[in-house]
């Protein structure tokens, strides 16, 4: 049986295939570099004073999202993944956004004249 399977994997690893994988490896290394650069950038941004918190957050999350895209898209092969997986992830993404968005919205939209402190806290 092991005989058999070894031959399967050998046939699997035909020349074409090896070539493919070698190309992949090159991509992985490039992305590795990009991720490291991204990390340096993120940290560098910290020392830049954007004066606005919103802008700081946007920039930081933007860089993080690009890094995340690279990891998910290439390392996790998400760019060439099957429909079913996309479906599951899209659901999770939608519900995550709903959870975060509605929770934040819900706790900021209080009846008028409400205050976010107890009566006696100075």
């Amino acid at each position, binding site marked *: *049986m092991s005989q*058999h*399977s070894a031959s*399967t994997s050998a046939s699997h690893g035909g020349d074409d295939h090896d070539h493919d994988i070698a190309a992949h490896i090159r991509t992985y290394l490039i992305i590795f570099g990009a991720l490291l650069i991204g990390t340096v950038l993120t940290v560098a941004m910290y020392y830049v004073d954007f004066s606005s918190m919103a802008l700081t957050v946007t920039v930081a999350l933007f860089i993080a999202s690009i890094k995340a895209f690279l990891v998910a898209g290439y390392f996790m092969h998400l760019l060439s993944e099957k429909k*079913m997986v996309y479906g599951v992830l899209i*659901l*999770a993404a939608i*519900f995550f956004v*709903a*959870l975060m968005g*509605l*929770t934040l*919205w*819900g*706790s900021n*939209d*209080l*009846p*008028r004249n*409400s205050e976010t*402190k*107890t009566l*006696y*806290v100075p």
Partner: protein
Amino acid sequence: MQSTASHAHTSATDSSHGHAHHEPGFFSKYIFSTDHKVIGIQYGVSALLFLLFGFFLMLAMRFQLANPGKPVPLVGPLLEKVLGEDMAKAGVMGGDLYNSFGAMHGTIMVFLAIVPVLFGAFGNYVTPLQIGAPDMAFPRLNMASFHAYFLGGVVMIASFFTPGGAARSGWTSYSPLASVTDLVNRFDGQTYWLMGMVLLITSSLLGSVNFIATIIQLRCRGMSWMRMPFFVWAQFVTGFLLLLAFPPLEAAGLMQLMDNLFGSSFFLPQGLVVSGSPLQVSGGGSPLLWQHLFWFLGHPEVYVLILPAIGIVTEVISNNIRKPLWGYKSMVYSVMSIGFLSFIVWAHHMYLTGMGTKVATFFQTTTMMISIPSVIILTALFISLWGGSIRFNSASLFALSFLPMFGIGGLTGLPLGFNASDIFLHDSYYVIGHFHYVVAPGTMFAVFAGIYYWFPKITGRHMNELLGKLHWAGSLFFMNCVFAPMFIQGFKGMSRRMSDGGTTYFGLGVDPGVLKLNNMIFWSAIGLGICQIPFIINFFSSIFMGKRAASDNPWQATTLEWSTPTPPPHGNFLQEPVAYRGPYEYSVPGAKSDFSPQGDKN
């Protein structure tokens, strides 16, 4: 024993001789089994025992409500001895004991009884059979899931014996109450509750990954999506609800655990003064955050309770009306939209926590939207009855009475869903009535229907019909006697979770009439309990003495589980099953019998 090439072919022969040779021992057969059917039965038996336990908790509470201040008969002295004088002085239920029984009744019923029996037991046993799979996709994960559940149950039960008793902040476990009830003994019932919940959530996550993967991957040849029995669809959607709604509660549970054990302030705001002295915490947390995270699970959870129940009812009804379902496709789309929408309605439990018009409008709109697919499903089931040739047996009686019972429960959800009417009805007995109509006569009837229906497949014997009908009639009658009066009490303004049954309020002369109903409810609950005795007798005696099933398909049903041997062997099917047609082909014009099984070629 791994085969590589043309897997499907060799595997059947492989396994049949692989398993003939060694008989598994007791432990690997019953405790550490990876067979979905054994796991299903394990789930079923444990869950039914929890159901009974939850009922006894409730009975003690109902006694207290009807007779506040009187010692609980029979078990009163025991309660005092086991739980201590603080909880049950002279056998009388104190406020703490009442609250802890209430919290544990809710928790046990939802997480340890009904979900495990619907999803764990029926889901496990029936789903792979109905899609023609040899087992679940990940059998060992399945076993781990049961063990996590069981451990969770043990932790929950153990919590009754911790100093201070079990959790007593409601099944909703709202902070700050959950974090300040016992400031001295941090390892209290609440902490146990949280640890138990983390285990139960883990169990559900493992289970739901397994179910979804199984349904996506292991459907047999010909079992296209639109040929799946509705029960499988229901389990599929339920799986997604558990998969994506539970993790936020797990996160919240961990946060509350930190609040309780490490003194953090996730859910505790600044400036709390408990029992007259300032609480020594940093503050800065938000009590409403807990509620959002809880109800983000909490609402999908109620559909976790009802969808598999509707699935069972659909199976039983379609079999007993001997005709196809009307609007199968619209039912499938409805169940999907219910699943989707159930994630964005949660704050209808929080209308009165201080919500502005915009958010409240959003959530009541989604709440109304979600009632539409429910109406569609019920309508489809009702319309399916037309033109049928309805057989009445224990299973179908329970399934049929599910419809109006769920109808009442569902309809009473509407006035709660409108925020303005919820102002009056919120946290009153009307809410209790609403959801018990869906979970008790609703879900529980589906459970009973399922048991009567699949019993012959599981054991090879029928349950006794006479006892079954007795069980049905009594349950239907007393269920209504228990829960219908609650609507009246709710209208009179009686609040839930009142350890004295409302005497303090209504002692003021506000309308003592509704208090008398407490008596009636108590005795009806006793009656309800008594009506379960025929069932329990029936259940155990039929395993050994029931009428033997005439064939592998005694109900003359169409779905694939009935084309296996009885009980199905390890691996389920003798040859590779193939689905040739839709799931409910009954009374097909021109066919030789009134049912055309999915697996029969012609």
